[in-house]
């Protein structure tokens, strides 16, 4: 019997995991408002409330008379294991610094993001900012922690000491009052440790860890990430109200929520040997996680979200681009006002179909922009020496190529309000496909009740249980998307298909620009042979056929002949017609109701 909680900034969610017929299953869940702020100012109250709800539903006593989680489990009460994640109080906010923005500073940013932090700013010696502006910035931001990197082991120490000399006089003040010293982690050139120690006085808590970029060719983010987690618990969390109590209750260290999500995605990708992308779109931010060939990356797009940041999505994507996804005319002036009204009153919900379709159009652009940012960040290491052959002479590829490859992507997982709460599952699938544009054959899924954080911590202490619950209860499979890469004139053949399974036996052709949905139940699989036209590639090469087992789901099998990259017609009338056709083909909405 395992109890897990996730203390979010607004809600604390508790789930119970039990062994049912020899398998671990998630059985009950409860939620309650998070109680970090006044008047409660004790996070454990929200935890107890959410666990009490679970206890009532499960008809099992989980909290004792002292208001603590009962352990170990007996026949009738308690649990064997209690774990928790937290993003309450705005999560972990960090600042990172490195010598060169594209090299050590980028590695430091990857380490911080991977540890679940929000990176407020990155400082590097090759910044456009003047030194005094950089110092002013450090002063204003008040991060929870600073990570400094720079230099390869045995290399020059001057530049990295210069960075420390910028941070030290800024005397950064932590967010949670003045009684604790700002944690600063140094993960740079080992030879610079002595001068770095001399640069900082006792006003900061300096920790030294292994260099996160020991050589240009190698990143070693583990030690820095671990130190971030330790300091997060020791300093940041320990100063947040009630956390000392919560820390003493849990059987595994409390993790920042995004770090836990990253953990479970990594675990699943490694175990199944697949490449996976996960997304969590919220009101203010969008998190994208990816695992390609075992390399994990995470980005947080701070101002791409569906309520607080909706206006920013419209400003960045532009309104005409968003309206491309809407199959009817809308007044731009009116829409601008609506978007701003959502921004100032973020808790309102779309009442009409028209309003919902507009919000889902905004979501497509928010997700697309967040994925663009992710691709730019998840790259091979820059600054690596490469051996080039004569054949490479005309190729301009250098270090820093994105490792995100949509053709190699196997699993795309959605979570977050607009994706999870869409009234029709087809809408979730369509938003994912339109925004991420997976190529070849990709399985689509969504996180049922945002359970990934709980399972992320669980995977550290009980991997088997975490994987079983993830597979059985966490993911809702939407189905599979088949989308060859390439382009041609609309109406020409894009690919032929032959699909056979227990409940399906279909064959036919998909034209360029066409979208078709075939039913394939959840839990079912089918053999799909795809024969792309000359200009299209489904994964085996241009024009080459491929046979694969595809997975069904609540939506089914999406056969997407719109080509990749997906380009919408420029003419507004033609575009509106195309989007109307796709809406009807996928059953996204009953457009007749709008008239």
């Amino acid at each position: 019997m395992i109890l897990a909680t996730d203390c979010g900034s607004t809600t604390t969610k508790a789930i119970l995991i039990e062994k049912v017929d020899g398998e671990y299953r998630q059985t009950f869940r409860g939620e309650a408002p998070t109680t970090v702020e006044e008047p409660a100012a004790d996070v454990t109250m929200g935890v107890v409330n959410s666990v009490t709800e679970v206890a009532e539903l499960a008809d099992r006593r989980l909290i004792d008379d002292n208001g603590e989680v009962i352990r170990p489990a007996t026949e009738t009460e308690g649990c064997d294991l209690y774990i928790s994640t937290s993003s309450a109080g705005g999560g972990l906010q960090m600042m990172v610094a490195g010598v060169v923005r594209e090299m050590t500073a980028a590695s430091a940013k990857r380490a911080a993001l991977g540890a679940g932090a929000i990176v407020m700013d990155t400082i590097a010696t090759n910044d456009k900012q003047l030194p005094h502006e950089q110092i002013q910035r450090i002063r204003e931001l008040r991060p929870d922690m600073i990570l400094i990197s720079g230099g390869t082991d045995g290399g020059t120490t001057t530049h990295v000491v210069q960075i420390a000399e910028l941070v030290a006089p800024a005397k950064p003040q932590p967010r949670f009052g003045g009684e604790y010293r700002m944690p600063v982690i140094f993960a740079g050139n080992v030879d610079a440790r002595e001068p770095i120690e001399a640069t900082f006085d006792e006003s900061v808590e300096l920790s030294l860890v292994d260099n996160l970029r020991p050589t240009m060719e190698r990143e070693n983010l583990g030690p820095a990430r671990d130190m971030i987690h330790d300091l997060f618990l020791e300093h940041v969390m320990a100063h947040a109200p009630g956390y000392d109590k919560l820390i003493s209750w849990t059987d595994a260290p409390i993790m920042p929520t995004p770090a836990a999500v990253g953990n479970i995605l990594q675990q699943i990708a490694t175990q199944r040997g697949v490449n996976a992308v996960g997304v969590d779109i919220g009101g203010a931010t969008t998190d994208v996680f990816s695992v390609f060939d075992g390399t994990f990356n995470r980005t947080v797009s701070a101002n791409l979200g569906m309520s607080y940041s909706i206006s920013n999505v419209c400003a960045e994507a532009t309104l005409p681009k968003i309206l491309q996804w809407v199959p009817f005319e809308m007044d731009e002036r009116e829409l601008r006002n609506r978007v701003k009204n959502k921004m100032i009153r973020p808790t309102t919900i779309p009442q009409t179909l028209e309003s919902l379709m507009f919000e889902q159009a905004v979501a497509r652009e928010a997700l697309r922009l967040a994925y663009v940012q992710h691709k730019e960040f998840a790259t091979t290491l820059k600054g690596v020496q490469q051996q080039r052959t004569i054949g490479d002479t005309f190729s301009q590829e250098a270090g820093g190529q994105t490792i995100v490859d949509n053709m190699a992507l196997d699993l795309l997982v959605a979570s977050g309000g607009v994706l999870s709460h869409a009234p029709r599952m087809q809408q979730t699938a369509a938003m994912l496909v339109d925004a991420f544009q997976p190529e070849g054959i990709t399985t689509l899924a969504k996180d049922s009740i945002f359970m990934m954080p709980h399972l992320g911590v669980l995977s550290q202490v009980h991997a088997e249980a975490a994987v079983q619950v993830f597979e059985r209860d966490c993911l809702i499979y939407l189905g599979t998307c088949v989308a060859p890469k390439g382009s041609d004139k609309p109406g020409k053949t894009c690919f032929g298909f032959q699909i056979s399974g227990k409940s399906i036996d279909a064959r036919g052709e998909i034209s360029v620009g066409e979208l078709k949905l075939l039913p394939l139940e959840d839990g079912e699989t089918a053999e799909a042979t795809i024969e792309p036209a000359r200009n299209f590639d489904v994964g085996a090469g241009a024009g080459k056929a491929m046979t694969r087992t595809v997975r069904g789901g609540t939506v089914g099998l999406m056969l997407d002949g719109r080509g990749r990259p997906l380009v919408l017609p420029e003419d507004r009338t033609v575009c509106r017609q195309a989007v109307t056709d796709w809406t009807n083909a996928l059953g996204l909405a009953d457009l007749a109701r709008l008239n």
Partner: protein
Amino acid sequence: MAQAYTPGLKVTPHTQHRVRRILPISGTVLKSVGDRVGASDVVAETFMPGNITPMNVANMLSMPPADVPECMLLAEGDTVEDGTMLAQTKGIFGMFKSTCASRVAGTIETISNVTGQVIIRGVPLPVQVTAYVSGEVVEVIEGEGVTVENAVCFIQGIFGIGGETVGPIAMACENPEQELSADRISDEMAGAVIVGGGRVTGDAVKRAIQIGAAAIVSGGLDDADLRDILGFDLGVAITGSERIGLTLIVTEGFGEIAMAERTHRLLTGHSGREASVNGTTQIRAGVIRPEIVIPLAAGSTPPESDNRATEGLLETNTPVRVIRDPYFGLIGQVADLPSEPQILGSESRARVLTVTSADGETVVVPRANIEIISE
């Protein structure tokens, strides 16, 4: 009876208002408990440590960083002027010496023998804090600032731009529906807090800036006009530092929307009185809304019943306003609060309520899409 809670904005004719006026870093408090202060009076002041200017002396004198300390003519803690000689090389047989001078005035903070950098802290920058709202100093926070208290009429807006300002209230619209257009703003309104009715037009804002008004308060604003005023498309509602020439507050939202009748009535009642206005808005965890604070005449007493904020209990007959399309701006009374969630036009399931407007129209809206208003 069915009930629910919904957030709203605070609009109250009489409240004891306390405002903490704190320096960003410790300094000197200039007032004592019991002092009467005006809105523009300075209550505390200090000096911020000056800006940092790093000077790479090693590079400037073409010498190894380790040699910098012994070539320095001044030590850490010494004050320098712009042009003061900082360091000098030993030269060759005492000749051909190179020198380097400070680029700024300040104090030498550190001299590094690793990087060869000398860090100079500039002259301290003065920082002052005013009372913002007139009243009595009721608390002195030693070295930090004061708390000022007064009986005020307090009105929160929904969104604003621009920071703190003070001026007399000048009514430009007779009723809450009337649009605030440029022709309603006269030269006599210079320095005033201009109060409109419904939507304020972009031209009216330009005219108010032109005549030197302190602030504009009105019901609504078009986003297209906001973009013109700011010069960019506002992405996230974190405002307060804009410098557009005045402070602008909308009390209801974007688009054609009338100011709440009660808000307009309160502001009309205080026409000519001094108001302290702040457009700072932060819509995030720990929300900050723009505010209009009107100190009341000494000895004024709170009215008996009309002192409730708009935040609170939702029940049948509660006056509410719909804050989202398709009924955005509709004002009415709660007719029914069914407890079971219902399917909306968007096909989502949500808890709803029924609102009956003054002309008898009855609409069903999600509970998330209304806010309580006070009559």
